[in-house]
C-alpha cells in the first residue's frame, strides 16, 4: 500500500512539474499579444506594458532596450557602444550574422515572433518583408529631423540613392502609399580592385572598354594569375547581372518592355546573350576555379597572397584587404566597363537596408538608432566605415583614400542598374535557385542555356501568380 501511495505521489509530482513547465511557457505566449497591443498604443503606454527585461530603470528614468541584427561586418559592437555613450537612455543588444546565414536566422526569428527591433535587410528579402507586414513605415520619421538635427533625415541622403531605394519597393511591391519601410545604409557600388604592381609588371592599364578588360584578363591568366572573381560565392550572380544591364537596357528602358507583363521574358535573346557571355568567360578560364565555393575570407587570402589579379568587390568588404595588404602591393580600383559599349552602371546603390520591425516595442529608440547609423557623425567617426561610401551629403574621405577608391566613385557616377532589372532577384526563391543551382550547373556544363532560361521563366511566372 505504502509503495502504491509512493508511486502515485511520484507520478503526480512528475505530471505537475511537466504541466508547470508548460504553463509557464503558455503564460509567456499569452503575455505576448498583450505586449503587442501595448506596443501599438501611445509610446508611453507601451513602455509601461513591456516586460521587465526590455526596459530597465536607471537613475534618469526608464531605459529603453533595443535588439539590432546586422549581416554587415562594418556595423559592429564598437559602433553600438558609441551610440549608447551618446544616448545613455538606450541600451543596444547587438547580434551579427554573416550574410550567407542571414536568411535562416531571419526566418527563424520571424517565425518565432522574435524579430529584432532594428535589422539589416536586402533587396530580395526587403520586398517580401514589406508584403508580410514585418516592417514599420518610417515616412514620419524620415520627415523629422536627422540625427544631427540640422535638416530633415530624408534630406541627408544623396537624392539618387533615395530614388534608387524607393524604386526597389516600387518594382518589388507595386504602388504603395509609402516607400519608406527602411533606410539605405551606405551607397553600395561594385568595382574591380586590382594590384597595380601586377598591371605595371605586365604593362597593362586600367581598361576603358570591355575588350580591353578581356585582354587584361587574358594577359594576367597567361602570366599565371587567377584573372577575376567576385568577393564571395554569395555574389556569383553579379557578373551576369552586369552583363544584362548592358544587353537588356535597350529593351527594358528604351522600348519599355517589362517582365511583369511578359513583354520581356527570360527567353529573350538579350538575356541569353548575357548568360552565354558569362559562360565564355568561364570557359576561357577568366574566372576563379573556386568561383562557386569561395567565401569572402578565401577570396581575400587569394588576393593578398598575390594569386588573384582582380576582384569585383563592394567597398564595405575591402577593409580586410586594405588593412592586410603587404607593402609590395599597390591597390587601385576601376569601374567595370560596359560589355555592350553602353555607359557602365554599377550594381548596388541602396542594396543594404536597415529597417525597423513593425512589432517593435521601442519605436522611438529604434528610429533614433537608425538615424545615428545613417548619420554623418557615425560615418566620420566609425573606423569600420572608413572605406564605405556613406551615400550622404557632405562626407569626405580624404585625398589618399579617394585615390584608391576612385573606381567606386566612377562606378557611382555612372548610376545604378535597378536592383530588380532582369528579375532574378525578384524573390529569395528565384535568386537563390539562380545563384546556387542554375548558374553553377550551366557553367559546369550540366544544363543548357535554354534550360536555365525556361526554368527562370517558370519560377518568375509562379512568383507573378503569387503577387
Amino acid at each position, binding site marked *: 500500500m505504502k509503495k502504491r501511495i509512493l508511486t502515485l505521489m511520484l507520478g503526480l509530482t512528475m505530471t505537475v512539474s511537466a504541466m508547470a513547465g508548460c504553463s509557464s511557457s503558455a503564460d509567456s505566449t499569452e503575455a505576448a499579444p498583450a505586449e503587442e497591443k501595448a506596443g501599438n498604443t501611445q509610446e508611453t503606454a507601451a513602455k509601461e506594458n513591456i516586460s521587465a527585461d526590455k526596459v530597465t530603470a536607471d537613475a534618469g528614468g526608464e531605459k529603453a532596450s533595443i535588439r539590432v541584427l546586422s549581416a554587415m561586418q562594418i556595423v559592429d559592437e564598437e559602433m553600438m557602444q558609441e551610440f549608447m555613450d551618446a544616448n545613455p537612455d538606450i541600451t543596444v543588444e547587438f547580434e551579427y550574422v554573416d550574410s550567407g546565414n542571414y536568411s535562416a536566422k531571419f526566418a527563424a526569428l520571424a517565425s518565432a515572433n522574435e524579430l529584432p527591433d532594428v535589422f539589416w535587410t536586402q533587396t530580395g528579402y526587403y520586398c517580401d518583408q514589406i508584403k508580410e507586414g514585418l516592417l514599420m513605415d518610417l515616412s514620419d520619421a524620415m520627415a523629422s529631423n536627422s540625427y544631427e538635427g540640422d535638416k530633415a533625415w530624408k534630406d541627408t541622403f544623396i537624392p539618387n540613392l533615395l530614388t534608387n531605394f524607393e524604386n526597389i519597393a516600387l518594382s518589388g511591391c507595386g504602388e504603395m502609399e509609402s516607400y519608406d519601410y527602411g533606410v539605405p545604409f551606405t551607397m553600395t557600388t561594385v568595382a574591380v580592385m586590382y594590384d597595380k604592381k601586377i598591371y605595371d609588371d605586365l604593362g597593362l592599364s586600367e581598361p576603358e572598354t570591355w575588350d580591353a578588360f578581356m585582354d587584361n584578363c587574358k594577359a594576367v591568366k597567361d602570366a599565371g594569375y587567377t584573372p577575376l572573381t567576385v568577393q564571395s560565392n554569395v555574389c556569383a550572380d553579379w557578373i551576369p547581372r552586369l552583363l544584362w544591364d548592358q544587353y537588356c537596357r535597350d529593351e527594358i528602358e528604351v522600348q519599355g518592355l517589362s517582365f511583369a507583363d511578359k513583354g520581356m521574358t527570360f527567353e529573350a535573346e538579350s538575356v541569353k546573350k548575357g548568360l552565354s557571355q558569362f559562360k565564355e568567360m568561364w570557359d576561357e578560364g577568366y574566372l576563379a576555379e573556386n568561383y562557386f565555393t569561395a567565401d569572402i575570407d578565401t577570396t581575400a587570402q587569394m588576393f593578398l597572397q598575390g594569386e588573384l589579379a582582380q576582384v569585383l568587390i563592394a567597398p564595405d568588404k575591402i577593409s580586410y584587404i586594405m588593412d592586410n595588404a603587404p607593402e609590395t602591393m599597390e591597390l587601385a580600383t576601376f569601374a567595370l566597363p560596359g560589355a555592350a559599349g553602353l555607359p557602365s552602371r554599377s550594381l548596388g546603390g541602396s542594396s543594404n537596408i536597415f529597417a525597423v520591425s513593425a512589432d517593435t516595442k521601442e519605436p522611438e529608440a529604434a528610429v533614433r538608432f537608425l538615424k545615428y547609423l545613417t548619420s554623418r557623425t557615425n560615418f566620420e567617426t566609425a573606423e569600420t566605415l572608413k572605406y564605405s561610401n556613406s551615400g550622404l551629403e557632405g562626407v569626405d574621405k580624404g585625398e589618399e583614400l579617394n585615390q584608391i577608391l576612385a573606381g567606386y566613385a566612377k562606378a557611382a557616377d555612372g548610376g545604378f542598374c535597378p536592383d530588380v532589372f532582369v528579375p532574378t532577384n525578384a524573390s529569395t526563391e528565384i535568386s*537563390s535557385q539562380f545563384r546556387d543551382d542554375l548558374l553553377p550547373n550551366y557553367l559546369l556544363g550540366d544544363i543548357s542555356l535554354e534550360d536555365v532560361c525556361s526554368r527562370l521563366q517558370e519560377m518568375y511566372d509562379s512568383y507573378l501568380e503569387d503577387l
Partner: protein
Amino acid sequence: MKHKTKNSLLKDLKESIPGYLLVLPTIATLIIFLYIPFFNAFRISLYKYKGYGALTKFIGLDNYVTVLKDKHFYEAFLHTFELIGCDLVISIIIGFLLAYVMFRGIRFKRFFNTSLFIPYLISMVVVGCIWKILYDPTIGPLNQLLKAVGLESLAQAWLSQKSTSLPSIIITWIWRTIPFNMLICYANIMNLSKDYLEAADIDGANQWQKLRYIIIPHMKPTFMTLAILTVTNDLRAFDLIWVMTKGGPGGASDVMTSYVYSKAFVSQQFGAATSASIIMMVVMIGLTVLLQVAKGRRGGGENA
C-alpha cells in the same frame, strides 16, 4: 462469470493507474515536442510558405510533387548513401587495422594512440574550415604539394568540380570518423582473451590465421555496432558539408540534410522543404522496417 470478469477488469485498471501516471509526463513531452510539431510540419507541407507570416496559400500536395520531380532530391539521397557506404567500408576497415596495429604493439604506441585520436576531438566545423583551405585550388597546400612533386596534372579545384566535390568531402568525413572506429575496435580487441591467441601459437598459427580465425570473429559484434552507429551518424551529416561547399557546386555535394536546409533557409521554400523532410522520414522508416524484418528472418532461420 461475466460479473467476475468486469470486476477483474476494473481491478486491473485500478492497478494500472499509477503506471499510467508515471508514463504521463513522457507522453506529454512526446506530444508537445514530437507529435504536435510533426502535425504542424505536415500542415506546412501543404502550403506555399516562406517561413514567416500566416499560412494562407493552400496548395495541397503540390510541394510533394515539386520535390519528387526535383532531380536534386534524388541526388541528395544518393549522396547520403554514398557517404554512408564509403564510411562504412573504409572508415571501419582502417579503424580496425589501426587498432590491430596498436594491439600488436609498436614503438611509441601511446603517442600514436593519442595523436591518431586527435581528429575526433576537433569540432566538425573547424575540420571543415581546415580542409576547405587544404583543398583550395589556388592557395591550398594540396595542389601546391602536387605541383611541387611534379604531379601538376592532378591538381584541380577539388571542391568546385562536380566530379570531385563529394569524394573530397567523403575523404574529410572518413578522416574525422576513423579515430572513433579505431578506439572502439582497440577497446574490443583488448577484451579478447589471451588464451585463444596462446592456444593458436601452440598450434603453430601464423599472424594472418590468428587475425582471420580468432580476432575478426571476435570483432563481428563490434563491427555490427559500429555499422549501426555509422549509419545513424552519417544520416545526420550536415555541418561539414555546409562549411565546405554548402552542398554545391550546383547540388553536387548535397546530402539529405543540406538539401532540406537550403530549401528552407536559403530559398525560403519552407513548404517544399517540409515535404522533402517528410518523404525522407517515410523512406527512413521504411528502411528501418525492412532491416528489422530482414534481421528477424535471419534470427528466425538461425534459431531454427
